[in-house]
């Protein structure tokens, strides 16, 4: 794997390999000194053309925990504002000797364009409405940590699917692992065509709530009101919000996810966001480990089996907590500690 651009391009084996690798880095992240030398001497650049503090910090934290050097290119202080093309910007960054570039852009496909121009590995850090692969992976990881294997797991992805790169990432990552995904939204917030999407569709949240293992909520953007996609936030909440009343209908093991930032009181009621079934903070925490796994896979473990990766993560003998324990009867994929000598 040279780049990570699309979740749609990942098969089940790819996703499982990355999530298994994430297990190791969750453990690294839980140590008192959460740092391993896996990518020492490598440089990871963040090329963010769109504001996203949390994703940028998550990638940078991941890179630093792998001992990579990091660079940040933020559009607000960049030559892009002076009219430089995306291609020239990418070539400039590459000329500084980077090994991987995390590209965040408000236009779908921008990371693909960058990948066509430079030799360094490109990680899609979220592009337009298209994809956000590490978000899909971290959601899959978080859900797998809670529920165990996802074969047959029923997930409702609720809200503005049309404009959501998270929704597209989740659909591909979760269904790759065998989950059954139902998109729940009014027709105005669904993509114009779902041909080829491995999903079911409902316009009625109440009709699907009784039959799900996970509710993945999407952020509702206020500008959708002015685009006449829904009549009002109030009506949206009444029909598609995870209100306290709806949350009471969910079983104790149902997982509630949200990629953040949340609109409390719109797509999710404040008390539901703080409910133990909500794993929103776990998603953020796991995001760092997933991104460590991705960077490690691209830069430090080419053609290297996951078991051997333990050498570079220094997992053996490590102290710290195990990944999130399962809360259901399903058996999680917590790996056995690798039997390798310490460093």
């Amino acid at each position, binding site marked *: 794997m040279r780049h990570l651009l699309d979740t749609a391009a990942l098969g089940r084996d790819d996703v499982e390999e990355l999530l298994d690798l994430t297990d190791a880095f969750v453990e690294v992240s839980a140590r008192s000194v959460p740092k391993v030398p896996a990518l020492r001497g490598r440089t990871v650049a963040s090329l963010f053309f769109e504001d996203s503090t949390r994703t940028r910090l998550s990638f940078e934290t991941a890179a630093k925990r792998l001992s990579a050097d990091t660079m940040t290119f933020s559009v607000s202080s960049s030559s892009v504002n002076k009219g430089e093309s995306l291609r020239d910007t990418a070539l400039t960054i590459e000329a500084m000797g980077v090994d991987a570039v995390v590209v965040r852009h408000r*236009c779908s496909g921008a990371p693909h364009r960058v990948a066509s121009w430079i030799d360094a590995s490109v990680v899609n850090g979220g592009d337009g*409405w*298209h994809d956000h692969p590490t978000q899909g992976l971290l959601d899959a990881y978080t859900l797998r940590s809670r529920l165990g294997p996802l074969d047959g797991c029923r997930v409702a992805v609720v809200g503005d699917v049309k404009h959501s790169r998270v929704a597209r990432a989740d659909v591909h990552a979760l269904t790759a692992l065998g989950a059954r995904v139902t998109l729940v939204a009014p027709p105005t917030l669904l993509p114009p*065509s779902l041909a080829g999407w491995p999903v079911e569709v409902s316009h009625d949240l109440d009709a699907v709530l009784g039959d799900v293992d996970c509710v993945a909520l999407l952020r509702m953007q206020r500008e959708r009101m002015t685009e006449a996609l829904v009549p009002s936030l109030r009506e949206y909440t009444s029909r598609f919000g995870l209100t306290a009343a709806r949350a009471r209908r969910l079983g104790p093991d149902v997982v509630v996810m949200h990629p953040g930032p949340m609109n409390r009181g719109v797509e999710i009621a404040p008390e539901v966001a703080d409910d133990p079934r909500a794993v929103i903070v776990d998603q953020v925490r796991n995001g760092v480990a997933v991104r460590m796994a991705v960077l490690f896979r691209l830069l430090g473990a080419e053609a290297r089996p996951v078991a051997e990766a333990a050498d570079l993560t220094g997992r053996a003998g490590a102290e710290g907590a195990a990944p999130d324990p399962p809360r259901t009867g399903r058996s999680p994929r917590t790996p056995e500690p690798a039997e390798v000598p310490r460093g």
Partner: protein
Amino acid sequence: MAESLVLKGGRVLDATGERTADVVVVDGRIAAVGADLDADRTLDAGGCVVAPGLVDLHAHLRQPGREEAETVESGSRCAALGGFTAVVAMPNTTPAIDSAAVVREVQDLGRTALCAVHPSGAITVDRAGEVLAPMGEMADLGVRLFTDDGTGVQDDLLMRRAMEYAVGLPHDVVLAQHCENGRLAAGGHMHEGEWSSRLGIAGQPHAAEEAMVARDIALARLTGARIHMQHMSTAGSVAMIAEARASGLAVSAEATPHHMLLTHAECASFDPVFKVNPPLRTAADVDAVRAGVVAGTLDVIATDHAPHTQDTKDEPFDQAPPGMLGLEFALGVALAVLDLPLAEVLARMSWRPAAVVGLEDQGGPVEAGRPANLCVIDPAASWTVEPGATASRSRNIPYVGRTLTGRVRHTISAGEPVVVDGAAQR
């Protein structure tokens, strides 16, 4: 007396039929058509078809204003290489061709071009869709096609007035429309459908085009104006035009080479070379456009040659400008994808477009006394498009790697051999 030229050994093909004959050109005109003719200079036409030069009703030559992408001269060189002896230059230049002064400027630039260059005029001032442009003044200078191409005229009443006014002009003009309802297109960058959904790119639905096609047909029926629908891309549009023509309405319509060949699946690469407006549609639409051309509903094949510099295409799909090169590839695409005799393809690329804009010295029969605007085509040639294989100042070729059918060997424009053996002569 100027050097005489003979196109020797070819099959002459025009609207009157086909025959084997040599064609002698002297002083810009066809001097003789017959067997065993000789002249000062001979161009081999063996195995080839000698036909009236092609006429493109839809070329963006970018001058004035965006000479880095194309000039009248470089665009005309592309045209000549593609077998065109006349092009109608679109008015979305900077400034727009919306006044007699800019018409004259483009006409002046065209005097040294490698083919005839006929500026079109904008329907509204600055193509802003608010105030009618001085169509009469432009028509007095020879402009016969008016369009705000790049955007359709959104205001229904203003379009009605434009049609009514055009009917009253002393010249026979045609109002051409880029049919795109701006609100329904709503910032879409590709066709709205399966691929836009997968790629997360805002799309333009079929209805964005079809709504304006329907409106303009209704207005043409109301006003009696002659209208020309540019670059039709949907099956629904083709059906509406067929119905309108069947009812006797004076409506002509274009198909572009790219809408006859490429689908929206090309956009999966996110490469903006496949971004065009109207967008590449579904396979069913491509089939309908081809069928519309075969049936004669879409009676003109026009290129929508739209050069853009590499740096403007080196941007994300959303941000790159729409448009692709076409002049050098149009005939090759048409012959590759259409199940039509060569004469029918030439009808849609030469004499029919010439008739739409009243170009009497173009597209006519190959006979003595006529202006010598000719192309010599090897219809059996098969060639693969190479990157950068264009005389354009731009490089946005969507056909790289594709094998096309039929190639232009020579082009004679106003008697001058501007392309000989596939090479531009200046």
